Structure formats: structure tokens, C-alpha cells
């Protein structure tokens, strides 16, 4: 499986309270899990690193978390919020 390093696309940033992504002309509400995933995207962490970190935080198996992350990131990338 590929293990990309996702980061927010240029011009995309978290709103001050961390609950939304702001992009040109668009706002995306993030649920709690999505917020934690997005907060981990610092442009240095690979998807596997993020999965490991969240697996600890949520006390859940990494393979399960990994599925959520892959799905979210694919969705955010297709919508232009995230670059891989």
C-alpha cells in the first residue's frame, strides 16, 4: 500500500476553532475524527504515522483507523482540500 504524506492544499486552512476547513469560496465542516486527522497533517507525517498516533489516542487498532484515514484523505484530495 502506498504511504503518502498528506498536507492541506495551498490556500486551505483550519478555522480558528479547528472545526472547519476554509478554502476559497468553500467551507467544510469536520466531524471530531476528521478534525483529529487534519490536525495531524503537518506535511511531514506519512499516513502510517498519523494512523499510529491516532491509534494511541483513540485506543483502536491501527488497521481500523487506517481505513478511516485513507477514506477521508481520498475524499479531501478529490475535493482539492488536501494534496498528497
Amino acid at each position, binding site marked *: 500500500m502506498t504511504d503518502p504524506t498528506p498536507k492541506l*492544499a495551498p490556500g486551505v486552512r483550519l478555522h480558528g476553532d479547528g472545526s472547519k476547513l476554509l478554502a*476559497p469560496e468553500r*467551507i467544510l465542516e469536520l466531524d471530531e475524527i476528521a478534525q483529529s486527522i487534519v490536525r495531524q497533517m503537518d506535511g511531514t507525517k506519512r499516513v502510517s504515522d498519523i494512523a499510529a498516533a491516532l491509534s494511541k489516542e483513540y485506543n483502536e487498532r491501527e488497521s481500523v483507523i487506517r481505513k478511516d484515514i485513507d477514506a477521508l484523505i481520498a475524499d479531501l484530495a478529490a475535493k482539492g482540500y488536501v494534496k498528497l
Partner: protein
Amino acid sequence: MSLPSPIGLLAELTHRCPLGCPYCSNPIDLVRASGELDARAWTRVMQEAADLGAMHVHLSGGEPLTRNDLAEIVNAANVAGLYTNLITSAIGLTPQRLTELKAAGLDHVQISIQGADPARADAVAHFKGAMKTKREAARHVVEEGLALTINAVVHRDNIRDLPQIIDLAQEWGAGRLEVAHVQYHGWALANRAGLMPSRDEFQTAAQVVEEARERLSGDLVIDHVIPDYYGERPKACMGGWGRQVIVVAPDGRALPCHAAASLPGLTFANVKNKSLSEIWKDDAAFQRYRGTSWMPKPCQGCERAEVDWGGCRCQAFALAGDASLTDPVCALSPNHATVAAAIAKDTAAPRAPYRFRRIGG
């Protein structure tokens, strides 16, 4: 029904602009430089907008770069926590200015283009060399690591160039392309006969966008603002009157829509004497067409009443002569035939010469 917060502030910083686009949405009666709000007033407006819940500010005009204090205004918006979007023709967007704006916290730059072919695009902009300047500015934006949107207003003279416009947006490094069909307000309404494409041309354009969206998914986001005149149901203009956006005109008047100043019978409060929050909550002009209780017949009780909010007031006024009627674009409107009549008349007419936008009409 509780009053929602505005999502965005459209800050029309000035009506001055070096270009003369015949489809400009500014009113025919443009505000002069001497009547513009100063940076201090804009600083307060930014904070008030953020306090009211707005998240985006669109710094628009006219051409915002004609203001020497633009960086100060961007900084104020940034300090207030707003996402700052500069909407520009790129004339005057030198590397120095860009660096200064980026340092002030600018999040995003939207550059408008008038077409893909430089000679024809410059003719529409009424400005020699505009395209070349835009290309260079776009390169600087990307080099600075700022996000870039290309905005292309399409009409009769450039709609066939849409594939090249899409290529160009990609080539220039844009992350997003906005393909916006002319909306007939202000100068665009005065030039409608020269701008209106045929239905076939519009349908071809829609297919081109669909195909490109699929092909470029993940690389280029394409937003397509479809022309009201070829729809069966209107759009929620501005997301509904007084629901999502608050517009502040160069002279400080607060409007529910950038074209609202052309509607008869409305007077607008000025941010010089009132806070944005007072205006948003209580101002009579914002209340006038807010929600559903003002609605006339086919809208009253219609299942789409809270989807499109009865469409565009300015269009109702332009086509049916009364801003409080259902938008004639809606097939349920008793005035729907006026749309077809306008299309037939404008597309059959020989291409009318443009009336280029300029201060002093």
C-alpha cells in the same frame, strides 16, 4: 426562525479599476475615490464581520490594488481571523505588492481573465497588455506559494474558447477555476445584447466543464456558475437575501447583494454610522426580502422556498419590473416568458458594440 450568521463579507474596497469589462457587475453609477471608506473604517468592519460569525472576506471592487492601503486592510482582516480572498484583475499585482500582501496574511488570490486568446481578451478588458500582466502575476502568486484561482467570465465572445481557458488555468498553476457565466446586473445588463450566448453554446460549455472536472479531479477544482437565463429554477441569489453574505460598498453602504443598490425603494444603512451587527439584524433593507414571509404566489408554500428563496430580486426587477415578484427565471413564474423573449431578442440581434465600464458612465 432564528437569524443565521453571515458566512462571508464581500468588501468592495473601491470602484476604481484600470479595466473596462463590459460585464462588470458594478453599478453604472460608480463611487468615486473621494467617497471611499478609509482603512480605519475597514479595520473596524473586518472585526465586526468576524464577531458576527463571518469566516471569509472577499476583497473586491473595482480593483482592490488601486488602494495603496490594501495591505493594511488585509492585515486587519487577518487579525480578525477572517480567511482573506483577493479578487483582482492582477493589474498592479507586482512581486513587491504580492510579498507585502502575503506578509499581511493574504490566504488566496483570484485572478480574472477575459479569455484565452490574448488579443481578444485584451479587447474585452479594454486594456492593452492585460493578459501578459496577468500571466506574470499568476506566476508570482504560485512562486510565493499562495493559492490561485482563475476566474473566467464567459459570454458570447469567448464561450467557445472554454477548453483553452481550462488548459490555461492548469498551465498557470491554478488550484481552482471558476467558470462564471455573465449575470446580467449593472454594466452587464446594459451590454446584455452583446454578451448573451445561445442555448447550444451554453450546453456545449456545460459538457466541456463536466468532462474536464472528471479528467482533472484532484488537480483542478472547477466551479461552474451557470447562467440563470438558461435554467428552469433560479439560484438562491447570494444564498438568500440577508442570509449568507453581507456586502459593503466602497462608500460604506451595507447591502444584501452587490446589485441591490440598483433596486428602487430601498435605502441602505452605512457602516460609518452603524455596526454591521445592528445592520444585519435590524436594517429594513436586509429584512425586506429575508426569509419567506415577503414571498408572492408561486413561491409562497413552494417546496423550494427555502432552497432558492425565490431567486434573484434584481432579476425580478430587470425582467418583470418588480423586485418583489418571483424570479422570472423560474418556470413557475407567471413572467417566465420574459426570459425566453430576452434570450430570443439578444441572441438574434447582430452583436452590439460594448459599452465599456468607466467612471462617469
